[in-house]
């Protein structure tokens, strides 16, 4: 028996109103299609709004030598060559255009003395490449895209959570979910669907992510048969807040280091200069003395960048090791100091960091160093997509943004995500528009809807006593312990066992109250996605027996050239997670040559 539910129809359904989803809406609407946009929060509140440091694209406004080729190289190197070269090529070529178009739509970036868009340095980027607005770049981008998308008159379903993709045969033909305020159900039929649901950082205890990042998108795709790529690759941002407890995990933008922030341990050592932390691949490219690093602040042409600006995986590991060796700060982090830049500079370039520490942490960063420790931040792995169209392996289903994979490889460079969502958001919109024009609406299968309704409603009548919040906490603790920065066979296996137990316990979830705006009930659905996503992450992490980028296996501490040639693919086979390897597509000679020239 199914209860009544609303039914809607759109040529293109975009799930997710972050930058990727909004950019997809714009291009699908520009193609003349009728678009529906769904998001779990209010419009303008998606994760993208929190992005701080900037959006990377080789505009070359300050460093004329910059080019798409160098951005391409930096991104491949940062990702330790696990990236899909074609995705990176498209990305590096199109990013500047996507940034400039934002300006035409009303975004107001900080300016250079010539009146062009200002760009700042960031980890792993050879040149100053991040267009920004102080440290609130995400807000600028989301508001610009939101206003632009709204001007096309798409239909927006705010505070609607979709929980299942609907299929007609092989093809995705819509999605099913519930209105958060009323708890009533709805189905949206579509000729093509874009998943732009963002990342899944909520599985960890210390996180910079919001409640939305529970992996629903990636799991809906998985359940619908889509292949997932390199799910073990989860990024730990080197600098999260550590104190007071309420702010633990909140992000401290890399812009602090980009603008000269210095990392020190409790002995006062500027530890990033230690030779043991400098990867072979980057030797000779970073300042070797503190004096040179200091001169770089004033003259970026004649001096090399400070080692604080090594890629995130490297800096996170170094901080981890410093703290482990007993050289941590009072509350178990390290110190990040920007005071030498002076109060005026700091308040102008990093206003929201200043405010965040002042209001939430009781620290004046113009006078005192910050305490920082790695926090979970970004998911490089995700839904496998086609480089040109963003099509997934399931017909009718497209993916873009953080939920998709292939661009960042084993480690994302800061700033590359905001340009990712622009470049591939647009392409996903175009891709779906093309597909939608060639097909009709598919049939909606009542059985799929009934199954999902039953699953949703079960916790109200279930005799069990499991509490969704408790399960979430236990999962977060297990992931934090077993699948964090330093991973081992033993730790991962134990973590997997805990996850499987929690999955059993999740069958006995019980919730009270009504269906109207009931967060306990919402959590009961979310925890299922979180558990499954975590299972896939841990299984892939167990499989990859090497250290590469974000995947640091303490029991396999080296890079293995064999593993460097393949991606891990996860897909659903019956009730099992099937994991296989697939050779990376080979880079064509003209691109491969770029790397030889630099040696």
């Amino acid at each position, binding site marked *: 028996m199914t209860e009544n539910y609303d039914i809607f129809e759109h040529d293109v359904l975009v799930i997710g109103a972050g930058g990727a989803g909004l950019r997809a809406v714009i291009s699908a609407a520009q193609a003349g299609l009728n678009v529906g946009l769904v998001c779990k*929060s*209010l419009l*303008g*509140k998606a*994760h993208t*709004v*929190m992005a701080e440091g900037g959006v990377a694209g080789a*505009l070359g406004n300050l460093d004329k030598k910059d080019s798409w080729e160098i951005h391409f190289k930096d991104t491949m190197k940062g990702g330790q060559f696990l990236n899909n070269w074609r995705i990176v090529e498209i990305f590096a070529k199109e990013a500047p255009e996507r940034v*400039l178009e934002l*300006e*035409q*739509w*009303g975004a*107001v970036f*900080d*300016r250079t003395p*010539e*009146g*062009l*868009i200002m760009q700042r340095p960031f980890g792993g980027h050879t040149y100053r490449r991040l267009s920004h*607005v*102080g440290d*609130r770049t995400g*807000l*600028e981008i989301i*508001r610009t895209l939101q*206003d*632009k998308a*709204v001007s096309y008159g798409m239909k927006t379903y*705010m505070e609607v959570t979709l929980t299942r993709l609907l299929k007609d045969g092989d093809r995705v033909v819509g999605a099913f979910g519930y209105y958060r*305020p009323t708890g009533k159900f709805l189905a949206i039929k579509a000729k093509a669907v874009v998943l732009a649901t963002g990342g899944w950082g909520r599985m960890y205890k210390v996180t910079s992510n*919001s*409640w939305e990042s529970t992996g629903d998108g990636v799991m809906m795709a998985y359940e619908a048969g889509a292949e997932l790529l390199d799910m073990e690759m989860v990024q730990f941002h080197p600098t999260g807040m550590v*104190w*007071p*407890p*309420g*702010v633990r995990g*909140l*992000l401290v933008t890399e812009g602090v280091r980009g603008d000269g922030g210095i990392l020190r341990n409790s002995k006062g050592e500027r530890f990033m200069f230690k030779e043991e932390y400098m990867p072979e691949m980057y030797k000779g490219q970073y300042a070797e003395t503190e004096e040179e690093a200091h001169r770089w602040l004033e003259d970026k042409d004649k001096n090399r960048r400070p080692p604080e600006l090594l890629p995130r995986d490297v800096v996170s590991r170094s901080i981890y090791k410093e703290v482990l060796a007993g050289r941590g700060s009072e509350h178990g982090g390290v110190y990040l100091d920007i005071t030498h830049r002076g109060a005026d500079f700091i308040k102008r370039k990093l206003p929201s960091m200043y*405010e*965040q520490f002042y*209001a*939430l*942490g*009781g620290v004046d960063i113009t006078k005192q160093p910050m305490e920082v420790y790695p926090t979970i931040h970004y998911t490089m792995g995700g839904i496998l997509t086609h480089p040109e169209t963003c099509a997934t392996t399931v017909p009718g289903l497209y993916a873009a943004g953080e939920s998709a994979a292939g661009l960042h490889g084993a480690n994302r460079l800061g700033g590359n995500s905001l340009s990712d969502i622009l470049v591939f958001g647009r392409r996903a919109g175009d891709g779906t528009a093309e597909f939608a024009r060639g097909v009709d609406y598919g049939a909606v299968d009542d059985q799929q809807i009934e199954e999902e309704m039953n699953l949703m409603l079960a916790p109200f009548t279930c005799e069990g006593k499991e*509490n*969704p*919040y408790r399960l979430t*906490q236990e999962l977060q603790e297990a992931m934090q312990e077993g699948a964090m920065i330093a991973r081992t066979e033993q730790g991962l296996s134990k973590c997997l066992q805990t996850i499987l137990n929690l999955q059993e316990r999740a069958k006995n979830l019980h*919730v*009270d*109250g*009504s269906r*109207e*705006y*009931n*967060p*306990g009930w919402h*959590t009961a659905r979310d925890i299922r996605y979180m558990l499954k996503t975590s299972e896939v992450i841990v299984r892939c992490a167990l499989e990859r027996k090497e250290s590469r980028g974000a995947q640091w296996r303490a029991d396999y501490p080296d890079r293995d050239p064999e593993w460097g040639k393949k991606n891990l693919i996860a897909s659903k086979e019956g009730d099992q997670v099937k994991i296989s390897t697939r050779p990376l597509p080979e880079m064509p000679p003209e691109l491969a040559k770029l790397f030889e020239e630099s040696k």
Partner: protein
Amino acid sequence: MDKVTLRVFRGAGNGGVEQDYEVPTFEGMVVLDAIHYIQQNLDSTLACRWNCKAAKCGSCSAEINGVPRLMCKTHVSDMASKGQPIVVHPLKTFPIIRDLVTDVSWNYRVSEKIPPLQLAPDAPNPLVMQQMDVDRIQEFRKCIECFLCQTVCHILRNHNAKEQFYGPRQLIKLANLDMHPYDTLSRREMIRHEAGVGFCNITKCCTEVCPEHIHITDNGIIPLKERVADEHFDPIQHLIRKLAGTDKKKK
């Protein structure tokens, strides 16, 4: 461990009650932490909105001890006075959906009516704008749409004049577009009539509650008032000024 009592509004549009919850405190705890504690340990049905927990998204607006604030930016220790509970209510100016969640859709509907940026046809790409010329609009663009200013403004709060007045948030959106160096569209008729800039009597309550410290009144509304008042609006002249780039400098 120290404890604090939260007195939280529970109910829906048709009425509700205040309910007390005792919550253990920790250093640096904000009101949103306390609400989360209640959800996780005392009553999982308590409804509230939040996203960033870092004062960046503008989701967690509520009225705390009678003052509109972001729950994630308000320290429990600043709100608690001896023996008194911390009172948390939903925004007063908007219809209640449930508990601390209100229906703010009116703000989105009004925002949609404001015509977007319209660049001069020959505007260059990339645009050339000096930092000095965009400082002011960048201030307006810091808005996180928390709608605290909308809820506190007496024209909306006490007089419910939602048909006549767009409210401070939308006025600074209009100011942002109007002051954009390359924008060519005149929105002054809208500012004067539909948006009702004349209703504002410069009490500055909006500026006081703005978590982004935007000088809504001084930098946004007052200049808008001057613009629509001191000249009989002439669209051709407006266009010429915009194109000549003199508009910005004209106070």
